[in-house]
């Protein structure tokens, strides 16, 4: 599988300009500074970093929500620069996104069936019957029931909603799926279910994930490669084991040190330390 690169990002920049007003000079803020990476087909790249480090900006560029300021994105050999070329249906079908908050990412006035069929309706000429069959299959695939087809989003729990959001994203059978903190709004047991679902789907459909997260335990579970971002720059990029076992950059080390340890051994250790101090 090596060498089969599906996502190729080179020297990507995103600059936000604030306009000059009477009281303020024009300022520019670089959210993403010269990011480059490759993702191989069927693997998962985890992007890690604190809030405001440019993770989500990166996701928005990869999914063609925003245009890059400079640099190149290539998905399966198709260059993407929406500022220049606009977006074609072909590009849409390659990349899709799952958002963080399942309570905000589903249209409250749209039944689940319509949510799932919308991408097909907009991007293919599939007849309605076929669309419905696909949507029903997809519901089962993500672990929901066919009778959920006609219900509204508010009738579902957070985990179920995230399943629906995932189903919508893979309706078009994208090559690349960008997951923008897909489990951080869910409670722990549901998180595990969703992560397992994502893993199963990856095996089944050969999906490639760009997984954005600040939860390192989740990253360790799911990722093949890890990219650590800090103030818009990539400070560490390597395979999961490399990064987790031998972090190079100071920030990465700090990040790992800041992860709360909840296993019994570390709790005992902490208690022992406390007892010593007292």
């Amino acid at each position, binding site marked *: 599988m090596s060498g089969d690169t599906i996502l190729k990002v080179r020297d990507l920049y995103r600059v936000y300009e604030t306009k000059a007003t009477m009281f303020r000079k024009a300022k520019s803020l670089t959210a993403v500074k010269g990011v480059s990476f490759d993702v191989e087909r069927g693997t998962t790249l985890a992007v890690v970093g604190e809030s405001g480090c440019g993770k989500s900006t990166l996701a928005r560029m990869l999914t063609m929500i925003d245009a890059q300021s400079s640099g190149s994105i290539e998905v399966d050999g198709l260059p993407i620069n929406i500022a220049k070329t606009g977006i074609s249906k072909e590009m849409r079908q390659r990349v899709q996104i799952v958002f963080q908050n399942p309570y905000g990412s589903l249209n409250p*006035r749209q039944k689940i069936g319509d949510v799932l069929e919308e991408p097909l309706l907009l991007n293919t000429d599939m007849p309605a019957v076929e669309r419905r069959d696909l949507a*029903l299959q997809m519901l089962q695939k993500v672990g929901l029931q066919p009778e959920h087809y*006609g219900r509204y989003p508010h009738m579902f729990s957070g985990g179920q909603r995230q399943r629906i959001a995932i189903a919508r994203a893979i309706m078009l059978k994208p090559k690349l799926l960008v997951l923008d903190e897909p489990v951080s709004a869910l409670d722990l047991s549901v998180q595990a279910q969703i992560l397992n679902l994502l893993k199963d789907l990856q095996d089944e459909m050969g999906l490639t994930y760009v997984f954005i997260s600040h939860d390192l335990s989740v990253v360790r579970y799911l990722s093949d490669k890890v990219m650590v971002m800090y103030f818009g720059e990539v400070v560490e990029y390597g395979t999961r084991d490399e990064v987790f076992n031998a972090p190079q950059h100071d920030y990465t080390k700090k990040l790992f040190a800041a992860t709360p340890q909840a296993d019994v051994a570390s709790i005992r250790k902490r208690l022992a330390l406390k007892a010593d101090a007292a």
Partner: protein
Amino acid sequence: MKNQPPAVSADLTQLEKESRSATKAQLAEFWYYFSQNKGAVVGLVIFSALVVVAALAPWVAPHDPGFQFRENFLTPPFWEDGGTTSFLLGTDAVGRDILSRLIYGARFSLFIGIIVVAVSLTGGIVIGLIAGYMRGIVDTLIMRLMDIILSFPSLLLALVLVAILGPGLVNAMIAIAIVLQPHFVRLTRAAVLAERNRDYVVAARVAGAGHIRLMFKTILPNCLAPLIVQATLAFSNAILDAAALGFLGMGAQPPTPEWGTMLSEAREFILSAWWVVTFPGIAILVTVLAINLVGDGLRDALDPKLKRS
């Protein structure tokens, strides 16, 4: 896709039932919150009765609203001295039965309300959606124009418009619609601004929805709640403004049995024959009150801030 065959296609009827019951559940929830507000239910009953009476006017009204009974000028209502049961609410200065005129007048009032709300609502929604969705210079231009319209006293502006267009019911309706429109524009714009950056809109964009689809199919349905409430208030406002214009002689022209026009014709008899002014006044009052109560109940039922989650 190496998945199960569509084993589900067999129970399509089951699916449709499920889908219908989801819709029904929404309606049931809406009715639950609406019916909590007793005033709103009373308003709805009165309003429905009014609609029925207006629709069945030719059968309900005891007399022709335009027919002048030459022997019965200014007959008082039946419970007063000199009143007769053939004119339950009395007659006006030229011998026309007031009850019949009120019943026919309900048609005009409802008609005015519906047309004005339809015109100003559609216009307001389209303009507001464009302003809120496009932002930038378009937004600024539209909103400043709406501010200019709003800065005039509404009845005065309507009066000026009618003076330009010429007096008459249709022109009065156009004028009122123009005066009421900015409220809808503002409301729509505010709702669109709140919704346009929500994740589900972005998701629809990623799925490939174009601008028109995003505006009208994705965003608009989620902005409707405040608009529906405003529409009921505009309905009563329209009736009130039309009556005011009619009273000032700029709305419906005599002998149309429009409530405001009836008031205007009866002006000189305020002191001598109270019933000629009182009943059209009460009709306007009750109608507007009923509609406002309904609007209140709709707000309770539709405003998510007043509900859980």
